[in-house]
């Protein structure tokens, strides 16, 4: 065994130990440096990367356990070996609990030290190999912000990459929360228009008049409250990409207006007479079956064909469960950057995530992990931290067995189910329930529901 490429930091207040151990390790080809106390060890950890640290347990000032705790935070991949002249089971157990790689009693038996260093070199080469593989895998399973290894999504990535290079209209189909806007943004970033603006607009959130004004802009005095001229989203997106979400929800009048814009590449502000040239690439999205809407007569066929130039369908998460661990890793990376805290998912919690059906798709998964990271005690998420909504069929009622539920109870359960279905998207839930958002917020408050539809845990967990 030789320790080439393995950097070792020896932390001990006794110079003779630092020299003697350093010399022994250098003979094995390790790159060795030393620190005389805990404080300078922490400085060295902040400045440089170490593979192995041999840390004396008993030092004046900052002791070995404190150094170990700092090392776990600053260099979690480094293997920490504790050294002590005073072997007690208690300190050994504490050190191991805190994440020490192993524990040695001074003076060491040469064979014991030799075997331990062999183990540590093997472990560190696995750590390195693992990091390289993870990086390669991440790269392979990514298309900018989209993460997937499922064959269906790989086809989506390929199609989107090709489509991005053209100027054609793209229609993104997929359930709520499946990542339609993320895909639209990705297409924009991959396109020659990436230097231009990306403007997103949900067509379901507003009334017809407001939506018309939002999309096309208005002239001063066009309607009550139009105190000045305002550019619409089409003009704002000029030179870039306009993402029109929930396109299946627009009124027949707006369908006609939109058709004209797509045909003529000009918009007319509300209350204006002069058409304005627009240079935008449209990416439209819907979770509705537009073909059926065309057949039903609720969506214009000519507009459908104008939009459906390059259709891209995002599969729901329940059809690509193999992506759950990859997405978990992706979102935990993001949460780590935001929260400055790395949270892991326990094997039991991962099983629960894999078993869930994800009606709210990737957005729901992201919300669940965000909640889990906040709620988790320590750095491991347990199943109870995830707060996954129970399956609707198994939703517990408060009525006595055999007794039919009250109207209020049925309403509460239904609201909770719809919220869970939309992954906490209140706008969509309100639309599905046929009520406005304010009413829905009132009901959420009244029934003490959370936005993702789950009832708060009475234990407060």
């Amino acid at each position, binding site marked *: 065994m*030789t320790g080439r490429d393995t950097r070792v930091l020896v932390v001990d207040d006794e110079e003779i130990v630092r020299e003697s151990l350093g010399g022994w390790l250098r*003979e094995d*080809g390790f790159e060795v440096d030393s620190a005389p106390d805990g404080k300078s060890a922490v400085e060295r950890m902040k400045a440089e990367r170490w593979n192995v640290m041999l840390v004396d347990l008993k030092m004046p000032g900052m002791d070995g356990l404190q150094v170990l705790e700092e090392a776990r935070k600053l260099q979690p991949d480094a293997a920490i070996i504790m050294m002590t002249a005073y072997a007690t089971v208690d300190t050994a157990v504490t050190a191991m609990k805190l994440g020490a790689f192993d524990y040695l009693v001074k003076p060491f038996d040469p064979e014991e030290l030799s075997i331990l260093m062999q183990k540590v070199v093997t472990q560190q080469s696995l750590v390195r190999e693992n990091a390289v593989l993870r990086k390669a895998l991440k790269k392979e399973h990514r298309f900018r912000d989209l993460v997937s290894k499922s064959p269906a999504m790989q086809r989506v990535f390929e199609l989107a990459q090709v489509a991005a290079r053209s100027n054609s209209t793209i229609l993104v189909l997929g359930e709520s929360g499946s990542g339609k806007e993320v895909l639209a943004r990705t297409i924009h970033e991959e396109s020659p228009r990436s230097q231009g603006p990306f403007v997103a607009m949900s067509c379901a959130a507003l009334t017809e008049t407001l939506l018309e004004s939002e999309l096309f802009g208005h002239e001063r005095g066009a309607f009550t409250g139009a105190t000045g001229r305002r550019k619409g989203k089409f003009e704002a997106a000029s030179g870039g990409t306009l993402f029109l979400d929930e396109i299946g929800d627009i009124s027949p009048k707006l369908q006609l207006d939109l058709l004209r814009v797509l045909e003529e590449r000009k918009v007319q502000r509300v209350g204006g007479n002069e058409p304005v040239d627009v240079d935008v690439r449209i990416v439209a999205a819907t979770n509705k079956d537009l073909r059926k809407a065309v057949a039903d007569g609720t969506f214009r066929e000519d507009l459908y064909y104008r939009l459906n130039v390059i259709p891209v369908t995002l599969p729901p998460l329940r059809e690509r469960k193999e992506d759950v661990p990859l997405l978990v890793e992706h979102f935990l990376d993001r949460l780590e950057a935001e929260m400055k805290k790395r949270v892991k998912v326990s094997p039991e919690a991962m099983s629960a995530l894999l078993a869930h059906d994800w009606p709210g798709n990737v957005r729901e998964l992201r919300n669940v992990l965000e909640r889990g990271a906040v709620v988790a005690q320590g750095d491991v998420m347990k199943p109870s931290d995830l707060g996954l909504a129970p399956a609707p069929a198994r939703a517990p009622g408060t009525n006595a067995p055999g007794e039919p539920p009250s109207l209020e109870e049925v309403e509460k359960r239904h609201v909770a189910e719809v919220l869970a279905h939309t992954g906490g998207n209140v706008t969509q839930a309100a639309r599905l329930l046929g009520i406005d958002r304010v009413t829905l917020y009132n009901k959420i408050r009244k029934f003490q529901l959370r936005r993702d539809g789950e009832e708060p845990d009475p234990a407060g967990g």
Partner: protein
Amino acid sequence: MEAIHLWWIGDGDPGPRTLEHVRNHLARALGLPVRVFEDPARPADAWDARRKQWSTSRILAWLAHAGPPGKVLAVTDQDLFIPILTFVFGEAQLDGRAAVVSTARLGEPGLPDPRVALERLAKEAVHEVGHCFGLVHCDSPGCVMGRSSTARDVDRKRGEFCSRCRDHVSRRGGGA
């Protein structure tokens, strides 16, 4: 071609064969003349009364000024230690001129053939002098520069350098 000096600094009598065997072995492995240096001086300061062992770092420091010029390998029958380990077979100044090796742990009680311990001593002598030529431990199977933590480890090694270590020694003035 600068000779390597071999110096018995032990307590007892090494016997006529011991130093001769080590000398022949060293000369063959390193391709350099090896001369036995005789002097009654001993590193009295290297004795550690608490550990009841001899400190190799103190022996090496002593050899640097008390020994003959050039590289010197001291051989002893006393038990050696470095502060961090319970014992060592020997130690050397990496890329330096002094090395020490001990017979104390190389011949366990009940060893059927005394030649086994002698063979181990020869191998560890070459190993320590190898460090003086700047060699670190080698993981080529059987190379004498392999790390030995037990006598069994020494038995598994050949008494010679692998081709890579031999080339290194040649570049540093060895004639191997």
